[in-house]
């Protein structure tokens, strides 16, 4: 074992004081038989610096009955509980459960509190670090569960618990709760699914088409067969939202009377507009262009993002109350200062539309790329040249390459400083460009544009040996001796677009750095109070989703600002604790992802979307492929099931005194609800009625030193043969002990005849979700429930 500090606490107060001081760096030892094993194997996510022995607290070892309530001190040894006459007489399943733990040696050391607080069971989680390395599962801070698709015979049959968020949502820049909306699709609740998406991303119809979908790259299913087609599903819901826009994108219920001006109607501006409008602010969006949408309307080609989608997004915003003022010339028609006075807050989201000079001879003969894309998006089908060279390696350059080719150019070359691997454009889009016939010239920089009689005839390129310096800063170096001339009649520039902030009066105290507006990255706040900025005007060229997030963050900060609250980063992140998560059992079989490939080259057009969307059945099938990644370990505490069956309460002591929770609620979050500075100190069990029959059955492979594969505890109160009250608890079948509520309902009010018992056994496993190797646990559970309810005499159930 690695070193730790050790304390022997003499009182509960001492232990709590130490826990308060060391927090998650400390571990309590209440028996130690489980903990020492985990320390030896270095299983815990964080190796403790401090071990606090609480076995030295003398006043937590007792068994007594006070006013019809059994009280057991948390440090009472299991051996003592197993043989206690008070417990045997009235609470027999507690002694049976205690007697079933481990071996006699373990029961002499193990305590009831330690047993209740034991960590979950999963061999991946508990895989010894020194044997072949650490298996970084969910519980250890990893992103996946190995048991879900691996060896899982002893794991949960009732779903899992989310622990550290999910891989896809963590990868999503907007933090969309992807597993949640996919589970809502499985439930058929499209409206709720749409709401979950909109909470983090207002334009899934757009991002569902153009997002680089890092969620899919991180999808754990990718290691199993193929990742879930998250983007295609997102697109479907995005279109569903637009189809039902009047019901989903609505004006705020009430408006605050405050107003916000947004300059720029690209994804950042629109995102802020959406959230601010929904929060009750009157929003006016200004744009210099005749049509709103910024890059969505003008920059991104229609074959990737059809313009009617953007139009419908804009219409839905307008109908919800957002006002648009187009062809507005900020800085000339109205100054920023004037806007600031007229509106309660201003959000600058003017993008990066400027093609800067790149300092190459003949540069004035070249065409700025964004201008060409804008023209094409407006329907101007000019053919820029027959042989075209596009300079740049990003998405705009690749879009230009494909666009120019589809416009009718004979030969299109994309030349960039970066090597093929370093090209910043999306790999899938580079591949598409190559497929369509675009030639790539990676690692070449423009030296001069060759002209003859005022016309471009070619471009001389020089080999670029490296783009970035050792610190990763853009600092290209060239090998002057390696040059190449490429014939061309048109050169298009798509490099290093910068922000045009000439509309801002330089006299204003607005901080600018290298041509970009300086902001607080958490709140999007500029150096001028009340003025916020986001998107490419603050970052330089970026992605749609990044702009959407910046707009969302700004909207949250502006809301805080206008309410006079402290401006905080209000970006919504998914919750980490949740009840048992369900998936569709079909997801455990290998399947191919449903995706529609883009249409064949011969059918690709400038103004028709390349990629067809999924249909309803395909989306439903694909949503079923989601693992709903969670931890499917089991809680195998024998004491837990019997205590829940007997409606016990758990006394928890912390710095603020004590709190008492029902035993069932103690396991509400993985592994239990104890805060880092709290200790389980006592168990209270109400005396069962005379006519309550108790049963505990533990199914395991060996008679000793073995955990339950399934355990069932029941407390059934019978009144002249009819069940008055029933508590049936299942252990080792889920990450926490669970009550078989449906089975309890089945028998309540009825006589326990064979038919009723059969029905209850069936009800106990309805909704179970066996994994590939543990369907047998469902059958065992059913059998044990049947036996528990058929047991004629409490205490005689077989073990």
């Amino acid at each position, binding site marked *: *074992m*690695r*070193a*730790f*500090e*050790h*304390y*022997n*606490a*003499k*009182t*509960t*107060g*001492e232990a*709590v*004081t*130490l826990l308060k*001081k060391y927090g998650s760096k400390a571990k309590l*030892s209440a028996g*130690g*038989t489980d903990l*020492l*094993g985990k*320390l*030896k194997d270095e299983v815990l996510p964080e190796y403790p610096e401090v*071990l606090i*022995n609480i*076995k*030295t607290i003398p*006043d*937590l070892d007792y068994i007594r009955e006070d006013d019809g309530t059994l009280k057991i001190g948390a440090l009472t040894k299991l051996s003592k509980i197993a043989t206690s006459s008070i417990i045997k007489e009235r609470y027999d399943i507690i002694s049976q459960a205690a007697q079933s733990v*481990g*071996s*006699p*040696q*373990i029961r*002499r*050391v193990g305590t009831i509190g330690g047993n209740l607080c034991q960590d979950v069971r999963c061999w991946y989680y508990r895989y010894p670090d020194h044997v072949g390395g650490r298996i970084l599962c969910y519980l250890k801070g990893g992103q996946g569960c190995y048991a879900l698709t691996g060896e899982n015979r002893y794991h949960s049959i009732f779903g899992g618990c989310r622990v550290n968020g999910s891989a896809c949502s963590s990868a999503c820049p907007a933090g969309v709760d992807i597993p949640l909306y996919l589970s809502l699709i499985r439930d058929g609740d499209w409206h709720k699914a749409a709401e979950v998406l909109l909470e983090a991303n207002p334009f899934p119809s757009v991002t569902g088409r153009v997002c680089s979908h890092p969620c899919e790259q991180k999808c754990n299913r990718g290691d199993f067969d193929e990742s879930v087609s998250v983007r295609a599903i997102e697109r479907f819901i995005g279109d569903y939202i637009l189809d039902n826009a009047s019901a989903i994108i609505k004006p705020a219920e009430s408006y605050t009377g405050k107003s916000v001006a947004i300059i720029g109607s690209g994804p950042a501006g629109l995102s802020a507009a959406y959230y601010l409008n929904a929060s009750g602010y009157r929003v006016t969006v200004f744009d210099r262009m005749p049509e709103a949408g910024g890059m969505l309307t003008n920059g991104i080609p229609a074959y990737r993002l059809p313009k009617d989608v953007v139009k419908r997004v804009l219409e839905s915003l307008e109908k919800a109350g957002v006002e648009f003022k187009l062809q507005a010339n900020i800085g000339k028609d109205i100054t920023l200062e004037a806007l600031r006075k007229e509106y309660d807050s201003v959000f600058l989201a003017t993008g990066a539309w400027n093609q800067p000079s790149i300092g190459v001879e003949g540069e004035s003969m070249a065409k700025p790329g964004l201008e060409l894309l804008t023209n094409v998006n407006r329907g101007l089908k000019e053919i820029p040249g027959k042989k075209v060279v596009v300079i740049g390696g990003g998405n705009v350059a690749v879009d230009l390459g494909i666009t120019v080719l589809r416009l009718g150019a004979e030969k299109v070359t994309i030349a960039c400083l970066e090597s093929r691997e370093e090209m910043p454009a999306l790999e899938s889009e580079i591949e598409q460009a190559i497929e369509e016939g675009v030639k790539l010239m990676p690692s070449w920089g423009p030296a001069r544009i060759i002209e003859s009689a005022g016309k471009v005839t070619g471009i001389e390129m020089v080999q670029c040996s490296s783009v970035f310096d050792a610190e990763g800063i853009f600092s290209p170096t060239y090998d002057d001796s390696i040059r190449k001339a490429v014939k061309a009649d048109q050169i298009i520039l798509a490099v290093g677009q910068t922000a045009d902030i000439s509309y801002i009066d330089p006299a204003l105290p607005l901080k600018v750095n290298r041509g970009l507006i300086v902001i607080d990255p958490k709140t999007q706040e500029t150096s001028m109070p009340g003025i916020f900025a986001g998107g490419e005007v603050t970052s330089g060229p970026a992605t749609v989703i990044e702009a959407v997030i910046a707009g969302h963050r700004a909207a949250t900060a502006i809301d805080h600002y206008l309410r006079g609250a402290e401006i905080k980063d209000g970006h919504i992140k998914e919750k980490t604790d949740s009840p048992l998560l369900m998936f569709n059992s079909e997801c455990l079989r290998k399947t191919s992802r449903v995706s529609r490939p883009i249409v064949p080259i011969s059918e690709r057009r400038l103004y028709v979307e390349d990629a067809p969307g999924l249909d309803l059945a395909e989306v439903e099938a694909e949503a079923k492929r989601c693992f709903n990644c969670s931890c499917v370990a089991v809680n195998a505490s024998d004491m837990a099931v019997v205590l829940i069956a007997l409606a016990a309460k758990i*006394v928890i*002591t912390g710095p603020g*005194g*004590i709190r008492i929770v029902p035993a069932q609620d103690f396991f509400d979050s993985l592994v239990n609800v104890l805060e880092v500075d709290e200790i389980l*100190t*006592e168990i209270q069990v109400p005396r069962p009625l005379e006519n309550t029959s108790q049963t505990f059955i533990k199914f395991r492979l060996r*008679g*000793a*030193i073995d955990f339950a594969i399934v355990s069932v505890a029941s407390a059934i109160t019978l009144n002249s043969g009819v069940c008055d009250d029933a508590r049936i608890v299942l252990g080792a079948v889920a990450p926490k002990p669970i009550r078989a509520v449906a089975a309890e309902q089945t028998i309540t009010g009825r006589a326990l005849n064979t038919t009723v018992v059969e029905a209850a056994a069936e009800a106990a496993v309805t909704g179970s979700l066996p994994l590939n190797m543990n369907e047998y646990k469902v059958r065992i559970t059913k059998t044990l429930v049947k036996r528990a309810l058929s047991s004629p005499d409490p205490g005689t159930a077989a073990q």
Partner: protein
Amino acid sequence: MPTDIDWNSSTREPIEKSYITLTVNGEPHRLGIGSQQDEIAPSHTLAYTLRESLGFTGTKIGCDHGACGACTVIMDGEAVQSCSILTIECDGKSILTIEGLEVNGQLHPLQQAFIDHTAFQCGFCTPGIIMSTKALLDANPSPTEDDIKQELAGHFCRCISHYLVIKAVMAAAGRER
């Protein structure tokens, strides 16, 4: 009751001793706590201390996870697994190991019974089984076969000596069939 915590007087941090005392086979040992070569580190298990610091190598470490019983010793009269107990938590305890059974060069009758019944092959698990049996017989001098099985349920033997072990224990208890 845990509700009666006197928060004013008992919420200090505990003051830790710099040594512990441990009686092994009747002989007291004073063991310093620390990270020096001759000291007991907080992470040392009782099994480790017995074997590595005090030289009682009759106590075996099998699984080191409380699942095989090989490390069983008697602590204050009870058979416990020494691999799952920290030495630092054994201050003032009295330990009996297999080395403590022999008196004046004479094997303990229980040890002799194991030999007489060839109740082992490789012998690795034997010290642990004998210590559990000793504690059992001390508490219950005439156990039934079932009592023995229950008590020894935590002991694993790869050579399958179990049947002969039960015979040996029954014989030692004077209940030979």
